[in-house]
């Protein structure tokens, strides 16, 4: 019958199994550098104007410990700090410390946000630390970091 022929033409009963087949995942390659490449320490320096960012429990960084897919890694940052006209969180910066361009985003907030929160999804090329830096309206910087284990790179 016609449909049997179709299956046959696709090689029914052809060569028997060899090894467990590999799914087509990109192999690890040397890290390519783009125009925007900027190492984490330099990027942080630019954002803080050289000031020190204190590690603080007020900065709640939520990223998965294990990312099943480096191309889509959810990141949420919340800063426990007032959002009043005179005292508020001015900005939240997110860095992926080992990406060639370590900068992911800089979010400039205002009291109209009500609460300092930001969420997005980032690409991580490999296992690394993700860092969130909060800039307060009084000019101080707070930060938090967490390591994310990437099982499959995001650049494939």
């Amino acid at each position: 019958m016609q449909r049997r022929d179709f299956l046959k033409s696709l090689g029914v009963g052809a060569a028997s199994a060899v090894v467990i087949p590999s799914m087509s995942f990109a192999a690890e390659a040397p890290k390519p550098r783009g125009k925007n490449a900027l190492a984490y320490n330099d990027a942080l320096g630019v954002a803080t104007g050289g000031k020190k960012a204190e590690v603080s429990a007020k900065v709640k960084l939520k990223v998965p410990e294990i990312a099943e897919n480096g191309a889509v890694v959810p990141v949420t940052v919340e800063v426990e700090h007032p959002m009043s006209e005179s005292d508020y969180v001015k900005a939240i910066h997110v860095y992926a410390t080992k990406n060639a361009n370590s900068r992911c985003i800089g979010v400039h907030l205002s009291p109209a946000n009500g609460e300092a929160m930001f969420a997005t999804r980032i690409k991580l090329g490999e296992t690394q630390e993700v860092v969130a830096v909060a800039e307060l309206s009084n000019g101080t910087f707070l930060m938090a970091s967490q390591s994310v284990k990437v099982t499959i790179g995001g650049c494939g």
Partner: protein
Amino acid sequence: MRKIAKIALCFTLFASLSYASEQFAMSDADRAMYEELLENNPADMMLASGGNLLEELGGDAAVAKFLGVKEDALAAYLAGFPRYLEKFGRVVSIDQMLQGMMHESGKKPYALKSNEMFNMSSYVKSLANEQPINIDINANEHMKKAYAFGKEVFDTKRGARGLSCYSCHNPSVIGTILRTQPLPDISAKGNASAATWPAYRMTKSNLATLQKRFQGCMENALLAVIPLGSPEMTALEVYFTHEAKGATIALPGLKR
């Protein structure tokens, strides 16, 4: 209401991950993070775009009219696809049904593999959200045959490695890790694949239908790729849909 469907979906999505070895096991907090992803599924945009395309063809009402069902019965009717349709003289999936509808109204049908068709057919299937899959493989001879044929395609070993879909999708291998990925349970007890596709694929950053997903496995397992909409593909969809019968449709899904 949609919310409930989504929670169920999270559960099926992450249930498959919990089979993984400790090396890849996610913590509850990790799972919660991924659940948040589902709240803002990029595929929502694609379905919205599909809805707009359908609007140009007369919207949901036009689909109901084409299928000869009342509008309030449309959702449950769509939850039974693929179906044998008199007009086509064969078993068809939603995308082919839409091609027929476009043709009948004098429009040039979108190709099955076009983004327009992925978006529009996914939107139409999402009208059945919250309905249980109610495919009836005993409805008529055609459905019976399609199911049997789908099972045959599923079980047939082919390709350079002599694999069948069954080789990787059978109860005894579910949860086994294949190159970092746990083999998913496609039945209503697990992923209920037919109820969670079309889905956004994070590795591909696009919306894919069930048939498109089948093609992905065919490529990866070195089986020659069967064309979308062919009798083999439709039969395979019938088989998968029957496997997930009773599961609540929750679209669009979100997959690795």
